[in-house]
């Protein structure tokens, strides 16, 4: 009904992509084994359900959090359909043994940020780590999650994405002069 709306929608065409952010709650690749304390163990049915919602999303780029690396992500985003990009913390934990240490105290939390990118959509994808976000959490002396960055190129247009999983447990506060909110 509006000329204003029509005008903007006619100039918008072709190069539409769908972006998603999805925290997968401690997604492990080992069936029936919780990734860490408090995490749900995953049955075969769980992976199938996640695939069902992957299809429902029908997304080109999915920023992932709480995934135990490309093996786990690949169970939801199969490599013949999606390219996977993961925080190099995943590699570091593997080579230092922190991903597999038998003593849970010595083991890292093994959840990583990353991306699944639908194949064939972009002309180029490059990945970079953002380890600076992995500050040391004083309470346990361990670093928190790194960020994962990708740079996408499509038809000469660039888009930079950063997948983050910031520290939990500190959800709200406003500046001092704020009146008491009604919730």
């Amino acid at each position, binding site marked *: 009904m509006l000329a204003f*709306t029509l005008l903007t929608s006619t100039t918008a065409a072709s190069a539409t992509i769908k972006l998603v952010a999805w925290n997968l709650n401690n997604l492990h690749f080992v069936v029936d084994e919780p990734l860490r304390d408090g995490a749900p163990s995953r049955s075969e049915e769980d992976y199938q359900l996640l695939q069902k919602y992957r299809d429902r999303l029908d997304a080109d780029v999915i920023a992932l959090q709480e995934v135990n690396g490309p093996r786990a992500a690949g169970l939801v985003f199969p490599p013949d359909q999606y390219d996977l990009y993961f925080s190099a913390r995943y590699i570091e934990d593997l080579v230092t043994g922190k991903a597999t240490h038998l003593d849970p105290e010595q083991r890292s939390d093994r959840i990583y940020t990353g991306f699944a990118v639908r194949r064939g959509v972009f002309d180029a994808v490059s990945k970079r780590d953002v380890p600076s976000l992995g500050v040391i959490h004083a309470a346990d002396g361990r670093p928190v999650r790194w960020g994962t960055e990708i740079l996408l190129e499509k038809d000469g247009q660039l888009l*930079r994405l*950063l997948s983050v999983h910031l520290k939990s447990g500190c959800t709200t506060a406003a500046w001092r002069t704020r009146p008491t909110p009604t919730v």
Partner: protein
Amino acid sequence: MHDGSLENPTDPDCVTLATQRAPLEAWIDEAAQQLVPFVILGDFNRRINRFGQDDHLWREIDDGDPTGLDLWRLPFDREAECNPSFPQPIDFLVFDDRAWQMVDEASFREITYDPEDQDLERGTPSDHCPIAVTLDLGAADDGEDDEPSDPDTTDLDLLYAPAEGLEGEELRGVLHEIAMQGHSRLSYAEVWGALDFTDEDPDNPGNVILLYTGRSHPKPDKVSSVLNPNHDNDSWNREHVWPKSHGFPSEGQLAHSDIHHLRPADVTCNPDRGNLDFDESEFAHPDCASRRDADSFEPSDAVKGDVARMLFYMDVRYAGDDGVPDLALIDEDSRSGPLLGHLCTLLDWHEADPVDDFERRRHERIVETQGNRNPFIDRPQFAMAIWSTCGVN
């Protein structure tokens, strides 16, 4: 629950989150300088929408630094539906200006799990639901236009084409339709942060300009009312230029949080104005740079036109739908009800104090935040075309 403060935090989780702000800002600064549109997406573990622009995390990253940086987030004004116990979202998509131009905001979705698939206790398929939005990469700014959100003249001509040549009630009706286009409701709590943006002092981004006194005052020194024990005489609050008692007393009513007529004002001047009609007034009131008498209030010459155009907007925007009565300007004392005076004086003020740069900038920022436009700022001639019976001198 701990208070979640990131200012001198004591809670260990908050200490860590507070520490993460610096590297996050550093990443944003670097990305902003590379002129490539960017999106930060994921689990922020922070209920940003609860306090919006005042949230300790959001305010630090959406701080206008580097100069001109402006961040947008989705979801902005809707609750999360993944788990009824946690209506406040903590997963966000955060866009810089360039990326935001590509976003189809209406496409935003939270994809929830079907009840038979979801186990809230186990947290499967996940304890978070995915959030999605579409972007049109072809809609990228070419970098030549520094104010890309300003619609160009052609867009505005198209918007107002249905109103051209009309007069009186017919024009008032068409402007009602135009003024409501794109209006997305802010909560009354979100108004604080919105005013920090819309009424920001152009010479000092840490301050807002207060309506009646024209004073520049720090954004954080907000109080809900003069009755708040934390107030000092310099604090500011949210002034309803169309008094809320005249038609929309409840916070849930759309006009109550419509930032087109909400302004930062000295907390001590706000009650002095009260719910008085606007008109020429008898006594000088120097503390508020205004005049007042028993039945009217007269702001300073510098903002007379601003006040008039805000009220013209309210008259056409609210016509008895959207849960707000039909608001109407009249040329006599209004006393009560959804009425306000004095129309002919306001038309004089509108002519004497035309739209200036600050008002224009404020208007564009309102459009960015709330979505809809004030026709009387875009097309000042519409006022006389509707209310031609006053005979402006």
